[in-house]
């Protein structure tokens, strides 16, 4: 909206960042939010489309044209309210969301998309700075008790929504701090953890209670929750990592990314970690070309690795997508993350054959090039090569929720799983997010499999509405 000709007059402006050499010295965030003037012109680029594809591209359906216009008019307070009306935690998504909205932006067809994420980032940072983000405790309490198992973005969103509508919500977290992957998956340099702490204080003021070091199904039986609560939300994430069962996998120095990343977050938080896994001075090979792999690269660089190589099984994607074919959907294209900018070798179409080591410690890996024909992978004959490696990090995605403990016990209570071993529940219509046990709901990665923070927030919000409907018969919460 804003300025009808804005998109013709202003160029897209990426957020400024601290140069790699500087930022590698610490674990602080290095992306600087837009200043007011820049946010204004970036907001002016929005065209107020007749059909705002961005809004559908966004999993939480952020009312993007409206807040773009409000920022253009420097009406920050209303912009913040508009943003919060669909998204509980813009400070998370404004930092780590890959911004499918921008892929769907109409300007992205033949120009550069509106910098929606940077505008979101600017709005929420200003909101906190101005003290506009305050607790919204419920006027009336329902007297219903809801347990939320897992404190990642899905659990937090569900808890906040349910708390604000008047239910007594207790969030259980198996780790020692709240936040799930937000806390221990995403490195501090991508998102500082004070953002989570600030939100938790807000939620506590709204009446939500948090219980850490409570692994339901291990420390506390599921049965206890079933007795103590009127409804239970399972939002335990998808933490079952994909393994690489090749010869030599048992060697020391080969770890899952999620054994590596959380330790550093703990150290940054001030904890003492005995025998921390460090990349310092080592030749690191990251297997897996996704976001988690990227985080391993960034962390290894900060440790001071001797070299970092990242392998991806799939072929190198094109630098420019075929827009008429894919717009407004998320395109497969070459993405160079900030961690890549900090230094790393990337190689595509590589499959690891085996690890080779001496006295139980990995020293190198043997890999082979692969080709993809008709969706099937074939090794290229004679393309074997070796790579020096004394730290291998496996970041090849997650297969689904951890099947033991929590899920075992809930399975015994009637909760079913789908063909991908996720907790089975629909997302539409009556009984959305409800499992086969009417009292138990599921949201986020635990229901949908590994996905984005923003999808988790969506599921948490929608699940909260379903829970509210189940408890009260009807719900005022947004869908």
């Amino acid at each position, binding site marked *: 909206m804003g300025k*009808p000709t804005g998109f013709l007059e202003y160029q897209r402006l990426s957020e400024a960042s601290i140069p790699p050499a500087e930022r590698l010295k610490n674990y602080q965030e290095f992306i600087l939010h837009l200043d007011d003037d820049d946010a204004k012109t970036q907001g002016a680029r929005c065209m107020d489309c007749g059909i705002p594809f961005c809004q559908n591209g966004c999993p939480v359906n952020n009312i993007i044209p409206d807040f773009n216009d409000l920022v253009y008019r420097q009406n920050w307070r209303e912009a913040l309210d508009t943003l919060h009306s669909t998204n509980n935690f813009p400070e998370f998504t404004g930092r780590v969301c890959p911004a499918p909205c921008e892929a769907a932006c109409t300007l992205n067809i*033949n120009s550069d998309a509106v910098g929606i994420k940077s505008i979101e980032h600017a709005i929420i940072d200003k909101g906190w700075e101005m003290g506009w983000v305050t607790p919204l405790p419920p006027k009336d309490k329902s007297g219903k008790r809801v347990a939320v198992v897992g404190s990642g973005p899905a659990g937090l969103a569900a808890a906040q929504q349910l708390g604000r509508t008047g239910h007594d919500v207790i969030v259980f977290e198996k780790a020692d701090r709240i936040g799930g992957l937000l806390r221990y998956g995403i490195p501090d340099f991508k998102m500082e953890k004070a953002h989570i702490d600030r939100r938790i204080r807000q939620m506590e003021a709204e009446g939500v209670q948090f219980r850490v070091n409570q692994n339901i199904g291990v420390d506390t039986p599921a049965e206890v929750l079933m007795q103590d609560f009127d409804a239970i939300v399972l939002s335990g994430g998808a933490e079952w990592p994909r393994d690489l069962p090749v010869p030599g996998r048992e060697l020391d120095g080969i770890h899952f990314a999620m054994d590596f990343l959380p330790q550093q977050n703990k150290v940054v938080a001030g904890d003492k970690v005995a025998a921390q896994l460090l990349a310092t001075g080592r030749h690191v090979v990251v297997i897996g070309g996704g976001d988690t792999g990227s985080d391993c690269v960034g962390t290894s660089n900060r440790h001071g690795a001797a070299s970092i190589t990242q392998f991806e099984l799939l072929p190198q994607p094109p630098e420019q997508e075929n827009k008429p074919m894919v717009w407004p959907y998320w395109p497969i294209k070459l993405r160079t993350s900030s961690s890549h900018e900090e230094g790393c070798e990337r190689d595509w179409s590589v499959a690891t054959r085996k690890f080779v080591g001496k006295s139980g410690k990995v020293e190198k890996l043997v890999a082979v090039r692969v080709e993809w024909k008709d969706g099937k992978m074939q090794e290229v004959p004679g393309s074997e090569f070796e790579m020096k490696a004394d730290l291998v990090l496996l970041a090849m995605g997650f297969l689904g929720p951890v099947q033991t403990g929590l899920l075992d016990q809930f399975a015994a209570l009637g909760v079913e799983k789908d063909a991908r071993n996720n907790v089975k529940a629909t997302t539409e219509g009556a009984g959305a997010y409800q499992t086969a046990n009417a009292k138990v709901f599921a949201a986020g990665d635990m229901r949908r499999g590994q996905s984005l923070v923003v999808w988790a927030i969506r599921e948490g919000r929608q699940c909260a509405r379903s829970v509210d409907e189940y408890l009260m018969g009807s719900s005022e919460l947004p869908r």
Partner: protein
Amino acid sequence: MTAEYLCSADQIQIKMAQGAKPGEGGQLPGHKVSEYIAHLRSSVPGVGLISPPPHHDIYSIEDLAQLIHDLKNSNPSASISVKLVSEVGVGTVAAGVTKAKADHITIAGHDGGTGASPVSSIKHAGTPWELGLAETQQTLVLNRLRGRIAVQVDGQMKTGRDVIIGALLGADEFGFATAPLVVEGCIMMRKCHLNTCPVGVATQDPVLRRKFTGQPEHVVNFFFFVAEEVRELMASIGIRKFDDLIGRADLLETRKGINHWKAKGLDFSRIFHLPDMPKEVARRHGETQDHGLAAALDNMLIDRAKAALDKREKVVIEASIRNLNRTVGAMLSGEIARRFGNEGLPHDTIIVKLAGTAGQSFGAFLARGITLELTGQANDYVGKGQSGGRIIVRPHAEFRGDPMENIIVGNTVMYGATAGESYFRGVAGERFCVRNSGASAVVEGCGDHGCEYMTGGTVVVLGATGRNFAAGMSGGVAFVIDEDGTFRHRCNLAMVELEPIGEALSPASHLGLSDTVLLKSLIESHARHTGSKRALDILGNWPKWSRAFVKVMPTEYRRALKQLAEKSAAALKQRAA
């Protein structure tokens, strides 16, 4: 609208109404009238263009019949279409349109609409095309008119299924607009009115137009698939030829829709009703309308003007004329436009001297090179859409009355004229020179609403005018004799200012001539062509009469002329520097 423009068409459509903007007209504000737009609309850059809701030559079904006849004369090979909006009673109108000899009718559904339409119209005007089409089909069949006219339906047609349902309800043809636009790259921004279409579909901005990526092949592909779906659906209901579908409402599967809970309490039987008529009564288009062109006087004119048309030789034709002879000169103009375009022929190449009473639309779309000299009188619509020709109407030599009191030409004279000149020794009826955009005219008096919505050209009135002169006039100039100083009260001053005529010539002068020179030369021509005593009197005592003239100057036009003058002066300066 020029003769050449009409000649270039395969089909000419008269939009009586359409789904998106029925009866509201439109306005193009001055700041949007760029040089390019002004060129296309033959107007002045910067001057707003008002498209008033009514057709000023259509106030009855007979008027519509006349316009159809005019257009058919101008381009006999074009099919003449009339667009109606789907609404209750459209069947009756369609029957009238068929009797008015249209070749083609379009029933526009309420779903259609461009991004530039007012929201109130998009939301509230018209009914679904299915209703209007069913009514049209039934009325035409019942009145045995259906065979004479092709029925088209439009309004958000998108699929082969739409085509089949349209055919079953009685349509021969189908109009698609939005869907092919989307195929060409439209993303329904609803910014058509802002000139900021980011995919270059609905914009004149050269920067944005470069972003247009549509290709004709995309549209071909789209319609290929539509046709394929039509074929599949036809096969599924066992229909071999598309013609066999038309008007077969009995083949529609309706139960599922009618049994839907939302349809409870509604009676759909009339939509699917098949009129009980004998088998031989046509249910689809198959005949051609008799436009009566064979009886046109122009056949003789074309025949006798052969030397001019083929060899550009001067020709003088003399003939008598009756009020049966309608639209005289249009077909001849069409021949000229087809051969020589808007340039036409040099003035006075074909001089047609006629005596008697001319029928309606005398000299319609008259091309340059033709001079129609009528001794006698003429009916309504003289010089409609005049395109460069010259029309002279003077009373019979034996006329004993005062020409200043004698209505010599009817209403709506020179409606939408774009070029040319006319001299009428006598008084014109209402709406003289309405929507004139470039022609000049001299008349000795006129009725109400003279120069209404005029955007260009020059009008001289040597006598009294009716009320509401210059309403909505945004361009051109009128000079009116104001003997008793009361003209001000008869003039609509909303958009114009009155001033004395000026001697001085400035870069911002209308047509680049000073008022005196322009006015005097027009009156001299009037005197020469019509022998007007009034004109001779005025010229005989010019110093006295020149003071009696009032110049009617549209404010917006004055501003635009000034801007253009400044712009060209600046350009000159720059070149000199």
